[in-house]
């Protein structure tokens, strides 16, 4: 009878392919991941068939939460800096250096101007508990949302212009000027009252901004037979 010879030493598996694959996947997910910005409020957007993506640059976004609170956000560091300076000058709000830096780092803001200093000193958890929002009613003091949008529009146009010239000098291709113009995005919660969103829309329309984009999640496009 032949003896079964047992292999000497510890059994070993060559793990190299597995490790290769693991790292490949890690790299893929790392590069494809885009992190969600830390918004002060979660908004469940309605769905539509539109497959246009949210623009990443030169974006001016107003969020209307389920309770009808209004938040404002604008992208671009230069835009935010100019915007903050203009807003602080208009409403005579003094901010410390740290607070200004905090404003540049964060995403949406939802506070009346007189509470801005306090708002910027909080952490994001404290902020999400607040029910402040930006005042949009011009009967009780100034319409602050209008100023936010107006100043951001001007600053974003300028930054877009600079970006366009910068990009044009680097390439010989003809660039689309419209890509560098500010885009106005409205993010509304599905359960929010339309009347609240309408107030915001009216602010935009008062400023002669008529092309608005609603943030929606994608749904299947149905086939239509004529």
């Amino acid at each position, binding site marked *: 009878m032949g003896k079964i010879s047992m292999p000497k*030493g*510890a*059994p*070993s*598996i*060559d*793990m*190299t392919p*597995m*490790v290769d694959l*693991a*790292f490949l*996947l*890690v790299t893929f*997910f*790392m590069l*494809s*991941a*885009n*992190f*969600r910005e830390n918004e002060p409020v979660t908004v469940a*957007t*309605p*769905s*539509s*068939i*539109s*497959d*246009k*993506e*949210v623009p990443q640059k030169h974006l001016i976004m107003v969020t*209307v939460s389920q309770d009808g609170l209004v938040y404002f956000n604008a992208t671009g560091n230069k835009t935010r800096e100019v915007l903050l300076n203009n807003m602080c000058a208009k409403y005579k709000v003094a901010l410390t250096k740290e607070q200004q830096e905090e404003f540049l780092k964060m995403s949406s803001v939802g506070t009346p101007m007189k509470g801005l200093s306090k708002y910027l000193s909080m952490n994001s958890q404290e902020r999400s508990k607040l029910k402040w929002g930006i005042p949009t009613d011009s009967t009780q003091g100034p319409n602050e949302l209008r100023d936010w949008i107006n100043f951001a529009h001007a600053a974003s146009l300028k930054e877009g212009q600079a970006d366009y010239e910068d990009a044009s000098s680097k390439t010989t291709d003809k660039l689309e000027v419209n890509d560098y113009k500010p885009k106005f995005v409205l993010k*509304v*919660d*599905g*359960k*929010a*009252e*339309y*009347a609240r*969103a*309408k107030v915001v*829309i009216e602010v*935009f*329309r*008062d400023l*002669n901004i*008529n*092309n*608005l*984009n*609603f*943030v*929606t*999640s*994608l749904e299947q496009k*149905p086939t*239509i*037979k*004529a």
Partner: protein
Amino acid sequence: MAEISDSGGGGHKKGGKKRAKKNSTKVDMTPMVDLAFLLLTFFVLTSTFSKPKVMSLVYPAKPDDTEKIDETQRINNAITFLVSQDKIFYYEGEFYAPGNAKGKPTTVLLETTFGPQGVRKLLTEKNKLVLGEKAKLDARLANKEIKQEEYEKLLNKAKADKYALKVLIKTDTKATCKNFIDLVDELKINSIGVVAPVDLMQSELNLMEAKTK
């Protein structure tokens, strides 16, 4: 790979030559693999692939104060939707309030639903002209007779046609954003070019309230 190397190499054999100890060149990769999988799990769980989309909507420009707005907007082949909370009504053509000066019978509001059987079916029926045009263009695009740019140009032209359906949207205070966006979405599905969200008139509100009761 990940085994514990116990046979370290040639030791000192009696009378043998002195050999340098053969160290295993193998590195224990287990911690690295652990880390790799940890990261992998993290990224798999946190990454979101469905980026949010935007639906653009062009509002009509605000009329100047000098321009007077007609109470009864004179628009041919228009359909007006009145939206309340999860309820939707519509009428076609002009609106005639009860006891109007022209002596026309009062407009009757018809109720429909947000689903595919309601608004979508209705609009498909009403907007046959543009949809038929679109189907023709789709076929030409599929056969590569026309290019994408030309297709879009022709489609926009068809949508802006004089006889194409135009839609007015009016909302009351109870309507939610979802109702509004659902309706606009249905309009987009049915390729309606002219959409105008406008203010609700008091007489329309009264009719709508009478209906919802």
